[in-house]
């Protein structure tokens, strides 16, 4: 159980968490685990530290191990820190057919990192992911909740420059949606 006083959901996030828990029958609050881990990533710098997972376990009144085993199973949960802007490029068949490899190579060159790495300034992490159901608008990449589709290298340039200029963190569950 968490004893770290620094780890605490904002009031808005806590109200939302409570609302989500109420969607499941009495005693089945563990069902809320995946949605709440998404909110936790949004609240706590885009990744799930052991302390954050312990905190989520305490909220749901389950054992920490039940959170660890779940968090490590699902690919959207980051088990180590990531850049403010996590770039997820689809690499599966249909996107590959339409040039996903070129997109990955281009971003690697532009940012000076390999897939799986983070830029020195902590701004970008590049990740290749499996099919995101955007095959008809391939190639594509996801940043935060946004699908960037029908990518060209020029488009990639614009998107990455925009993010660099804005400089804020993006998560799948966008921070501005952590409201009840």
């Amino acid at each position, binding site marked *: 159980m968490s004893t770290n006083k620094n780890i605490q959901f904002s009031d808005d996030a806590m109200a939302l968490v409570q609302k989500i828990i109420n969607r499941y029958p009495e005693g089945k609050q563990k*069902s809320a685990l995946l949605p709440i881990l998404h909110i936790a990533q949004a609240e706590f710098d885009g990744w799930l530290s052991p302390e954050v997972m312990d905190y989520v376990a305490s909220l749901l009144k389950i054992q920490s191990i039940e959170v660890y085993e779940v968090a490590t199973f699902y690919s959207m949960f980051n088990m180590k820190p990531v850049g403010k802007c996590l770039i997820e490029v689809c690499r599966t068949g249909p996107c590959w*057919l339409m040039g996903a490899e070129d997109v990955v190579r281009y971003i690697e060159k532009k940012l000076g990192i390999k897939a799986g790495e983070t830029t020195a300034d902590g701004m970008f992490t590049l990740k290749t*992911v499996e099919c995101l*159901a955007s095959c008809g608008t391939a190639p594509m990449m996801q940043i935060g909740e*946004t699908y960037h589709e029908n990518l060209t290298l020029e488009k990639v340039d614009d998107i990455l420059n925009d993010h660099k200029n804005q400089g804020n963190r993006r998560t*799948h569950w966008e921070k501005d949606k952590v409201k009840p």
Partner: protein
Amino acid sequence: MSRKLLLDNLDKPGIQSITGYSDNGGYEALRKALQMKPEEIVSEVQKSGLRGRGGAGFPTGMKWSFIAKPEGVPRYLVCNADESEPGTFKDRYLMEHKPHILIEGMIISSFALGANTSYIYIRGEMMYVFHILQKAIDEAYAAGYLGKNILGSGFNLDLHVHCGAGAYICGEETALIESLEGKRGNPRIKPPFPAVKGLWGCPTVVNNVETIAAVVPIIKITGEEYAKIGIGKSTGTKLISASGHINKPGVYEIELGVPVEEFIYSDAYCGGIKNGKQLKAVVAGGSSVPVLPAHLILKTAAGEPRLMTYESLADGGFATGTMLGSGGFIVMDEDTSVVKNLWTFAHFYNHESCGQCSPCREGTGWMYRILNKILNGKGEMKDIDLLWNIQGNIEGKTICPLGDAAAWPVASSIRHFRSEFEAYINNHGMKDVKHYYRLNNLQEA
């Protein structure tokens, strides 16, 4: 042009909202359904011949009829919106553009099954669609279509949307249930089937987004009318996700029975192969189904025109046929390397195996590494037979169908394109498939 039952009115302003949807006939089917008895709705769905649109094609009405009804135990309807099969993006399209048809379908189907709490399980990556659905659900509550005593019928329903977090396996219904319970997505051994013991041990039906949405037009026009569309046991309309080297990728609603050739070349659908190239191969129903070379996807082995139906696509079994699956229609032109396409699929299945069954956990990794070796010019001829052997030892030997799904692309690629594997091996890897044709001075099969 095919009749549109799901993607109709998409051009109408505000169709995404409850007002726009209702102004165009939305929620009329719900009013009609609430005047019917639940078993009459099940019977309409049975008469319609509707088959599960997620990939398996199991008759929906029959699935519904299996649900156990023990006294005092809640029943659940769960919508499978975990659309993750490579090549498939129809459910995302439907939910994004017409969320209320899913909500309406969920209310009617829940009423038919006697479920008072239902869930839509959407894959986590589609978080923006999650919020679209949440908004639609909020609108439906405000309009009195959800909550207590819906439209004075005495029927109560709470509908919730639940997000996953990145796992293909959660599209398998028992893994989806595990995930909805807040656990790892490990499929359960069946029996017991979810209809008897599903979510939290209660009777549960899991249906795909498109299946649930199709209940709306079925109630509207009757099951009998719906069954008149299509051919034989392939009734109604089907959403096809078309991708790859075609002029017009996108989601198309077809009446089942459209010839494959028309679907690929007609301007009403894919609009032909991009850049005037020749067709090489098609994966007709999502990455899991067997890939077919051009001559076998356009015509059956017997020379009959291949049709977009469950039966016609399966004609010839796996020797010369494939499956309609989820309708993820991936088109490859003459310059595509089937071996490399397979390599991306092999990586996918290796990544997505939940790890419960050894044949799948180990076998998917072996297949990926052997393909890697072949693509990198280190392949040996015996590797092709080894791949064949491994896929055969996965198929049918796992708890869930992910094992089969990982095996079939490998088997079909070798079955129909063995010479391409050999060329990679003989030439110690190739830069691309054009290189292969140049080296071998070959015309395409």
